[in-house]
């Protein structure tokens, strides 16, 4: 497509210079174009055995277009798995449909590129697909002391008095909600901040279910609103993020590697404890339901949701969209981030090696938290996600032993579609009996 586009641009420029714009349009119309549509024969891109696709080509040129259509299947780490090609000839003002079947692949997720190379058009269409993903298992276990590591972290947190400071912000109230700024002390005595919004109600006995909103990477979370009369929303800014940068205030790329050489000082250990402290706060409030807490977030927020729900059983519903840092040892060759920043960090510390980093990150691997989840858990993933690849997210999902549901977005990257939020809302309301 780029090739054809470039040709057209050059042509347009030349003709514009020679003959004027009106004549350019006439020439462009005369030339025509080739367009393609790639359709996987599965609504979510998942196949039980043979993957199959249809590649449709439409040619509006007067002349026939000859050339080839080829595909290349690779693993998520870009290792070639399968390739093939066919010769094609698409008649002038005609079209063609070409079916491809790819049998015999092992369980897992694969990238597939379809290339068309004809006389006036070159293009590559990228998709991904999965083969029997429920059979995907990690080749790496979790540390034997994983649970005691986090138990110890919680014991340390318990020693820190929260010293909750709650300030109502009347000027910020809207959507019939009161807004409170909340400050509290977390692990290492750091002050973290969040915002609680509560529906205004005449019912003095009313207790609200709580949505605990967890932030994405370096995202500042302010108060969240909405018209739901049953839900209070508590958004938390973890240490070093948003409104909780009093002590830790580092550059964006430095955050994920902060103190990575020591698992007991690593930034995410404190960040997860900040989320547990947020649950402590919710459970300190008499107007909030302590048995109806949903932890929800996307990306790093998805990771935090899984991690916090795993180690804090007071959370009764876990929602994690595109959770990062799952099956970390298998991520190394699959994704650029955060390993670009990690490799840079290792270079600055002579005693630090990638193996030591991975040993530490085992304690922060989302899949290792997943096996301890006990509440209903919803996971969302994009099939072409370059940050939370499907192999790794599915490894996390397969490890969950409690009621779970996964929504796959076949054509999305590091994002989810509206249907995820719809399903999440419905399942949460059913779980909390908010009929």
């Amino acid at each position: 497509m780029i090739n054809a586009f470039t040709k057209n641009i050059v042509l347009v420029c030349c003709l514009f210079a020679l003959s004027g714009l009106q004549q350019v349009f006439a020439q462009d119309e005369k030339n025509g174009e080739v367009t393609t549509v790639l359709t996987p024969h599965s609504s979510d891109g998942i196949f039980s055995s043979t993957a199959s696709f249809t590649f449709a080509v439409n040619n509006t040129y007067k002349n026939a277009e000859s050339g080839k259509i080829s595909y290349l299947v690779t693993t998520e780490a870009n290792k070639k798995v399968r390739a093939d090609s066919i010769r094609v000839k698409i008649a002038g003002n005609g079209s063609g449909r070409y079916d491809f079947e790819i049998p015999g692949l092992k369980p897992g997720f694969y990238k597939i590129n379809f290339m068309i190379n004809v006389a006036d058009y070159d293009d590559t269409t990228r998709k991904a697909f999965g083969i029997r993903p429920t059979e995907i298992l990690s080749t790496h276990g979790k540390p034997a002391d994983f649970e005691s590591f986090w138990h110890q972290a919680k014991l340390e947190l318990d020693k820190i008095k929260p010293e909750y400071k709650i300030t109502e912000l009347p000027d910020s109230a809207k959507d019939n909600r009161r807004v409170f700024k909340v400050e509290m002390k977390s692990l290492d005595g750091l002050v973290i901040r969040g915002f609680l919004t509560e529906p205004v109600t005449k019912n003095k006995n009313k207790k609200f279910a709580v949505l605990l909103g967890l932030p994405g990477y370096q995202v500042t979370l302010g108060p969240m609103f909405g018209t739901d009369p049953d839900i209070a929303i508590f958004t938390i800014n973890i240490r070093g993020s948003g409104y909780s940068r009093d002590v830790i205030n580092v550059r964006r790329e430095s955050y994920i590697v902060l103190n990575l050489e020591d698992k007991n000082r690593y930034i995410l250990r404190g960040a997860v404890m900040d989320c547990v402290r947020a649950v402590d706060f919710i459970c300190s409030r008499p107007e909030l339901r302590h048995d109806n807490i949903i932890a929800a977030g996307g990306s790093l927020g998805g990771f935090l949701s899984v991690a916090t729900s795993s180690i804090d059983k007071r959370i009764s519903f876990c929602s994690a969209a595109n959770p990062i840092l799952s099956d970390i040892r298998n991520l190394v060759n699959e994704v650029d981030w955060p390993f670009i920043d990690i490799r840079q960090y290792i270079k600055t510390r002579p005693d630090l090696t990638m193996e030591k980093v991975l040993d530490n990150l085992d304690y922060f691997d989302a899949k290792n938290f997943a096996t301890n989840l006990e509440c209903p858990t919803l996971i969302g993933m994009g099939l072409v996600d370059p940050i939370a690849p499907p192999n790794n997210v599915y490894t996390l999902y397969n490890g969950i032993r409690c009621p779970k549901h996964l929504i796959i977005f076949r054509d999305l990257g590091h994002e989810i579609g509206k249907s995820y939020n719809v399903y999440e809302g419905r399942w949460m309301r059913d779980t909390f009996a908010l009929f």
Partner: protein
Amino acid sequence: MRLLKTFTKTAFLAIIFLITSKNNSFADGGFPVRPGRLLISPSVSYFFANSQWDSTGVKRPFANGGKYTSIGGTLYAEYGISRRFAAVASLPFVYNQYSQNNTKTATSSGLTDLETGIRYYLANIDFIYYFSLQGTAITPMYNNNASLGYGKEGGELKLAFSGSAPIGNLSAYFNAADGVRQYFGGNNGPIQNRWNATFGLSLDEEFENQVSATLSGINSWSTDKSFVSALPETNKNFSFIQASLSYGHSFSHEISLFLTGGEFLTGKNTGVGTTFSLAFIYRLDYR
């Protein structure tokens, strides 16, 4: 990383927007009842018939310009006991009148059949379609008054199926239920199949105004094939199908009003009824 930031903000907005979607339809469907929620619905109804279908389904006017009217008041209540169980009860009072030309008008009035039951939330499909099962006990609140009812205790088992879905910015819902009811005592039953199907549509995003259409019917079988009155609950061997339209308005989250008008479309051994009703719904949350 900009993508991460943008995504997360978007995701939260979507969460908050979408979890507000909820059902606000009239009671007695397959939807579960929120624990701690008390729904009270006082209603008044008017029934009129000046003709009947005979036992073969042939329509004919009552002799001597006869006409039946019945004005009723019903107190309906349901309470969510837990996530799965809800208690339901209804107590109707009626004032019946039958008049003919040149004949003294006959009247009767009183409490009729008290219905008390337990509804169980059976299952759902993707949290969109809900199934419930309800067991109901029927207790007559009168003695030997055929114009008020059979005067027999009974039981009913009803399966209900409900669902909702957005249509553009609006919401649609449906309720479908079928119950088998048996009256005890004696050998002439009756045994009945009672069914209804409702399709409703909100007229605004806030669900303040809604309209619905209902098709309902009763098939009642008994060895007693006599015609007592135009009122369906007085005959034992009869059938009818009724169509009705409703308009509902929510004054607040707690208070709604439903206006309903209906017409009997076809039947056997019962009156050709025209009905109107006005129902208030109060929702009170106790948790």
